[in-house]
């Protein structure tokens, strides 16, 4: 058999899940959609001692408005979220990015929260969570705490999540009325992890940028906010030249590792283009070129 042996725990409620995780401590691993974890287990790159399967936790499958936010429970599947009205109307950036997450058969199982919690630096959804100023609820037996997505990611596959904790929810603030958004990436094959990607939201006041959020994926140890590029756009009416300058700033400090798909310089070049395209598209949409 491909995966190493493990002890399997099927839970039916959040309370059961955190009770079992509490007991297991460091040895417990959550199984949600499993679309990242099970491949790692098949290669034995991951060999968890215990798997806590939360797929049966019906109370965490929700996609709903909650206190003005879009709230997604831990077992809300990517395909379900992408098709759900609250997500489509409130957080179009998330829906656009979901179209780049592998393929429909993967998205039928994979969860939004799981992809964020897994914290693969090449994955789309962590960068979207940061770009949207989303927050996460981490629940343990002792209670729950909220953390900003911006603070959650520490490094590749490393997060603030402590042993015994479960990410039970992610909350996205709704896109501001009239704001533009864009998720753009370049991958060698449709559905692959990106060589570089960019998530952008832009709010305008007249023709001036009132708020900008620019986050890069797949070119660093975690989602990277391009704050110097954001600062450049603020208060300006961006033209092609300014956008190019912002893209230049966004990649100025990048040092992505080289691999079989491309060297450091190539990846920086690809990232620069993704940022430029994403800002341009978000601006077009903010100007009413493509209203949802």
């Amino acid at each position, binding site marked *: 058999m491909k995966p190493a042996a493990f002890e399997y725990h099927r839970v039916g409620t959040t309370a059961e899940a955190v009770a079992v995780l509490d007991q297991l401590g460091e040895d417990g691993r959550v199984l949600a959609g499993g*679309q990242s974890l099970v491949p790692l287990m*098949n*290669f034995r790159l991951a060999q968890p001692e215990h*798997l806590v399967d939360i797929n049966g936790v019906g109370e965490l499958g929700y996609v709903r408005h909650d206190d003005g936010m879009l709230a997604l429970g831990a077992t809300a599947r990517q*395909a379900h979220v992408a098709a759900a009205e609250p997500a489509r109307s409130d957080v179009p950036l998330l829906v656009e990015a979901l179209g780049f997450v*592998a393929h429909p058969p993967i998205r039928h199982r994979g969860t939004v929260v799981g992809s964020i919690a897994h914290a693969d630096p090449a994955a789309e959804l962590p960068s979207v969570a940061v770009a949207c100023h989303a927050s996460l609820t981490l629940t343990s037996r002792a209670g729950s705490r909220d953390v900003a997505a911006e603070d959650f990611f520490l490094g590749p596959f490393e997060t603030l999540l402590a042993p015994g904790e479960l990410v039970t929810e992610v909350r996205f603030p709704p896109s501001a009325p009239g704001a533009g958004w864009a998720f753009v990436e370049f991958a060698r094959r449709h559905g692959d992890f990106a060589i570089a990607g960019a998530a952008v939201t832009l709010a305008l006041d007249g023709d001036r940028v009132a708020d900008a959020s620019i986050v890069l994926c797949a070119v660093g140890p975690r989602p990277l906010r391009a704050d110097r590029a954001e600062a450049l756009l603020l208060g300006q009416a961006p033209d092609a030249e300014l956008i190019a300058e912002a893209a230049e700033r966004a990649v100025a400090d990048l040092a992505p590792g080289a691999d079989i798909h491309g060297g450091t310089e190539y990846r920086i070049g690809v990232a620069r283009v993704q940022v430029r395209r994403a800002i341009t598209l978000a601006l077009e949409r903010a100007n009413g070129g493509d209203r949802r």
Partner: protein
Amino acid sequence: MTASASNAQTLPITVTVNGRAYELALEPRKLLADVLRQDLGLTGLNIGCAHGVCGSCTILLDGETVRSCTLFGVQADGAEITTIEGVAPSFEELHPVQEAFWAQQGLQCGYCTPGMVLRTIELLRENPDPTREQAREAIASNLCRCTGYQFIVDAVIDAAARLRSAAQQEEPDESRS
């Protein structure tokens, strides 16, 4: 509600596959793809990459395509599964999508075909009249190393026409309105 099974232990599940109910006792680490192939003898699905990339182990789980290599068999407890063996109406007839793959030579070695057919069935349920571009995007989830995809896209388009014409014959009144 909490159920646990350790290393060499097995966990009992019930699962319906191609309309037939099974009771199985499974070691938790056994992949659903291996359960279907080894325990139930349903060798139509293939295991190509075993990490969710190639799509040759595609099945319908509660009506949706999934990779059976990235699910554990114990997770199928209570589920309804359709494999390629379950799509033809009888031993004598093929499903219209299978007929289209045959007619258009949408296969060569056949390894990817079960997954391609199931994915096509799902696509045409959601979009009965796809463009070639939409067909191409839909089957991008499944790798074929023989055909270069051209004949597979032909098969998807042909299958769509077959299914639409079958639906028209069944409901002549609706098709006119």
